[in-house]
């Protein structure tokens, strides 16, 4: 397996995964940023997403739960925006992506969408952060995680 070091290849590799792999890789990505969300419901959602034997009903229920978390966490129009809270919103979005069936997923598939939302969550957490941590750290981690998953 060659070293993945750019988004074009990364995305291609993700899209080439089968349905179960998409779900499990997506769950990996979300798990990595889970700490940015305070919502306990997402832990259960991720458990289901990572589970190879999860049934359709369990996944549908997890998806519903993840959706509910996004509704509770999105910024209200006109309210003072809080980027730390927004990080939680994007973690929930990533969880939604992870539990969305492949046929209904947005462009790129569940794993790619989860990766993007997870990165957004990380970026959001940095916005109010004075330190100089680079947003790129998250994609580096994602590349490595996918590599490890495929090489196992």
């Amino acid at each position, binding site marked *: 397996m060659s070293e993945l070091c750019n*988004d*074009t290849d990364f995305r291609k590799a993700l899209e080439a995964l089968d349905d179960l792999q998409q779900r499990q890789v997506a769950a990996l990505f979300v798990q990595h940023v889970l700490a940015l969300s305070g919502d306990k419901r997402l832990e259960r959602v991720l458990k289901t997403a990572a589970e190879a034997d999860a049934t359709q009903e369990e996944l549908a229920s997890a998806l*519903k739960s993840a*959706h*509910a978390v996004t*509704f509770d966490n*999105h*910024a*209200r*129009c*006109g*309210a*003072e*925006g809080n*980027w730390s809270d*927004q990080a939680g*919103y994007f973690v929930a979005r990533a969880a939604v992506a992870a539990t969305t069936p492949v046929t209904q997923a*947005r*462009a790129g598939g569940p794993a790619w969408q989860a990766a*993007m939302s997870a*990165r*957004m969550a990380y*970026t*959001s957490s*940095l*916005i109010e952060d004075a330190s100089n941590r680079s*947003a790129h750290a998250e*994609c580096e981690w994602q590349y490595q995680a996918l590599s490890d998953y495929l090489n196992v």
Partner: protein
Amino acid sequence: MSASLEKGINAFKRQVDSTVAAFFSSCVHCGLCAEACLFYTETGDPKRTPINKTEPLRRIWKSEFTLVGRVGKMLGLSKKIDDEFLEEWQELVYDSCTLCGRCSMVCPVGNDIALMIRKTREGMAAAGQAPEGLVGATTRAVTIGSPMGVKWPALQAQIKHVEEDTGLKIPVDVEDVEYMLLLSSMEIMNFPEFIEAVAKIFDKAGTTWTISSEAFEATNSGIQIGVSDIAAVLVQRIVDAADKLRVKTVISPECGHAYTAIRWDGPNLVGKAFNFKVRHILEVMDDLRKDGRLKIATKETRKLTYHDPCQISRRGGVIQEPRNLINMVSDNFVEMPDAGKMNWCCGAGGGVSANERADEIRLKVFERKKAQLDEVKPDAIVSACSNCRIHLEDGLEEYNMDIPLLSLTETLAEHLAED
């Protein structure tokens, strides 16, 4: 009389022109406006009759601008206007109205009641009677540049993310281009995919465009709270940036009131015609479609319906364009009842969603939209306003309805031809 009440009364007076006078002179108390307003139809509370919401302005018009009213005032017969009265009306003017304008379409004598309520807000705000949430949003808009406190570095971070996701460069502060894109704080915070979608569409169409780091905010809280001076300050920022970059057209994004503010109110607020055009993103995409520069490769198979955002459709004039665009990407597009200029409001615009006190009524009036959706039974709802989108999602979740909300711009981008 308190200082704020005096300011309020003066503000009310400044709002009275020949249109206001013609409207108040013609009202015959027929009550048809109530049946057009979702805040009445879903609550059954006659206080929420649209024309009733304008009572503060009416009292000023009567007692200051009509002979019979002035005589009445001299004789001590006119109805009083004091802080208590205005406070009582706050909930009607702000919590129970989105300025959707459906009442203005049905009044048999032709009253533009939504305009009258908008004008009523000017007096209410000057008298210190605007809801807390809106005051906060407006203060942030003026001091920080965004009602939600979104600053340029935050948008920059979003832009970087979008560039990674798409592989495209987002042009910032580029001069002499065709378009300058504005964004609403809601889109920046909740739907960064919108920026991606625009970038992809413009890239394929070969359009030159930019975002300005000095004026990227589209939302105009001044319009929602009803303080024209503040609305003017917010518009002027955009004008200055657009003039500086010498762009031909400013694009208003998927946000309802932003369009009204910049397209129709803007030049009147700042007192000067613009040197550039203003178009809604839907109008721009429809132009691209007409020019053959918007090529669609795949289609949506889900049964789609379109929710008309009030400020874009009925009050904005962008009614046919979204339909042309949806028809490009769908063979399964079904209109809901009352679609088009008579569509029902989602219930969250005009500052209602920024006002926590109005949360309960906002969810209650969603039942009107629910009734429309129950009739058409779509697989997905397409719209072009982030606030409508969030509120509809809220409402659908509340009523356990599993219908996804799609942004029209994002949907088009998803089905773009790769060449």
